């Protein structure tokens, strides 16, 4: 297997007297979807916020593409190529798809916004992910369905030349057909060589797209399993704490 895009070892984080992460290990490989599962309060969000540089870890080692990396600010994480798609997506309803995909990184030429270049790149990025459902790349985001919005938010990370894309519950609040759409997109994202970490509560989704499943239980990484070599019941056992197996 190639070098992991990101490798965490012994990561700790506490808020005052509460230890949220008690020495967590996690690996994510390029071209693979790593699902991060665990019950509420297991520390999933804290782990992700550390990777995003929003809440830096207290202790532990972070290797990014084999090199030690510092993740103290969102900017550092972003410049390494770590992009997070949050649950609430953070899109501007009143802007169109192109404008949203380039928000904050607009290209300027001839002293004005280079709409043509941005439009072209946005369309290419969507096409590279085989997105076909949008009517036009100049559609307002307000007219998009939940699944399409998720698509735009994910495609935006591709434009930002991400290497590691972290998705926070990408299928929460979506219907059956749209969930399917987004899961296909997640799969294609990985197939293009991005490392993907997907937080999910839905084990059916996880088993459908993930290559490996990492289970957090009360701040410990109890298992990181290959999807092919595990079962529903095993994973549920780890999530609920019935099964214990620290390490790989």
């Amino acid at each position, binding site marked *: 297997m190639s070098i992991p895009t990101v490798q965490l070892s012994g990561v700790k984080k506490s808020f005052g007297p509460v230890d949220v992460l008690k020495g967590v290990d996690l690996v994510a490989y390029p071209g693979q979807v790593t699902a991060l599962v665990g019950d509420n309060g297991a520390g999933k969000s804290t782990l992700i916020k550390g990777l995003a540089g929003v809440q830096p870890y207290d202790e532990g080692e972070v290797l990014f593409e084999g090199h030690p990396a510092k993740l103290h600010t969102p900017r550092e994480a972003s410049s390494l190529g770590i992009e997070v798609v*949050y649950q*609430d*997506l*953070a*899109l*501007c*309803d*009143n*802007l169109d798809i192109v*404008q949203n995909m380039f*928000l*904050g*990184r*607009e290209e*300027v030429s*001839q002293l*004005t*916004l*280079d*709409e*043509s*270049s941005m*439009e*072209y790149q946005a*369309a*290419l990025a*969507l*096409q590279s992910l085989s*997105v*076909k459902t*949008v*009517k*036009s*790349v*100049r*559609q307002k985001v*307000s*007219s998009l369905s939940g699944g399409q919005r998720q698509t735009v938010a994910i495609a935006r990370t591709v434009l930002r030349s991400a290497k590691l894309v972290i998705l926070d519950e990408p299928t929460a609040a979506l219907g059956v057909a749209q969930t399917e759409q987004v899961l296909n997109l997640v799969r294609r994202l990985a197939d293009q060589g991005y490392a993907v970490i997907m937080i999910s509560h839905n084990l059916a989704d996880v088993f459908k797209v993930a290559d490996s499943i990492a289970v957090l239980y009360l701040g410990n990484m109890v298992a990181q399993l290959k999807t092919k070599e595990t079962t529903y019941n095993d994973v549920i056992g780890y999530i609920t704490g019935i099964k214990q197996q620290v390490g790989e």
Partner: protein
Amino acid sequence: MSDLTLKTGQEGSTSEQFKAYFSRLRAGEMGALPAVGALVFLGGLFAALSPFFLTLINFTNLFVQSATLMMLSAALVFVLLLGEIDLSAGVTAGTGMAIFVQLTKGGMNWVLALILAFILGIFIGWVIGTFVARIGVPSFVVSLAFYLALPGVMLMVLGDGGILRVEVPEILAIMNNNLPLWGGWVLLAICAATTFAMGLWDRARRLKAKLPARPLTFLYIKTVGVIVLGGVTVYLMNQNRSQSSILQITGVPIVIPIALAILFVATFSLDRTRFGRYLYAVGGNPEAARRAGIKVARIRTTAFIICSSLAMVSGVFNISRIGNVESNAGKSIVLSGVAAAVVGGVSLFGGRGRLAHAAIGAFVISIIDNGLGLIGMPAGINFIVTGSVLLIAATIDALARKRSGGSLLRL
């Protein structure tokens, strides 16, 4: 053709583009159409009711009368797009003008005095913006405070009489003097050439990026439209519109090129620069804008500064037209400015609306004022009709958006 398979909205022949436009209309994206409709309707109504409405002098007067309101509503668009409001825009302009007139009376060079007035405008905008963006006081409250306080400043500046005459010929000329006849035609040529050149520029950039572009027919139609509408306007304004036989009044009022130039620059900055894009983004979803790395507080403050500065321009137009400045200046016009923007389809919740549409809205409000005055309606009726038009415009807009499936409140 290009290697793109996704649509960009510019494919297809002229007729397909027209079809797409009408389907957008049906979907509720009406833009300025309700305001333009109101304009045509009111124009026809007043033309039928008053023989004086369509006279040359009143035609030109309409433009001159609406210029002040137009500039103020353009100013307000910058803060309305953020979902904020600046109630003090009018009195800020009034205060600036009071100081301007007092300074020029004291013998100061008028250009210098004007610059000082604009510096005051920028400063007030900066203070309001700072309170709103950095401290978090609602803009309604901050600007209300200025709305209450600034007339006091005006009163102190103007002294006991509370009114001063403007005696700067250059300022009075803006609203009262006209371009030479050829000046109007040059102005028209500049407008048509700019429209055409901008269209070609956009098209060239699209083609360079290997994107589909609309057929050139659209650009021709647009340019011809500008030439015909502008041509008729300039032709009519170049006729002698004087009511007396001894005096000749001809030409396009000087205020028109000034207003057009300012509106052009403001529209350009909203549509084609990062600042404009960020303004819409912050108005649409401040949190998304912040996460995208946009400095939200700076955008907010800048918007208030631009609002106060453009309001100052409307103040200059105002004193030029009425020839004096009094301690109440700008108190009532600010709400008309907000109404004009809303009639033009600008959303008070932020993120939606265009500058040109607000200008059309201002024209609607002005035409009501003008027309009802001509047919001898009591002033009371004027206010009632203006209020009703505002309510109708806002209702049409809300219903259209409801139909398009968007939420009623946010976009």
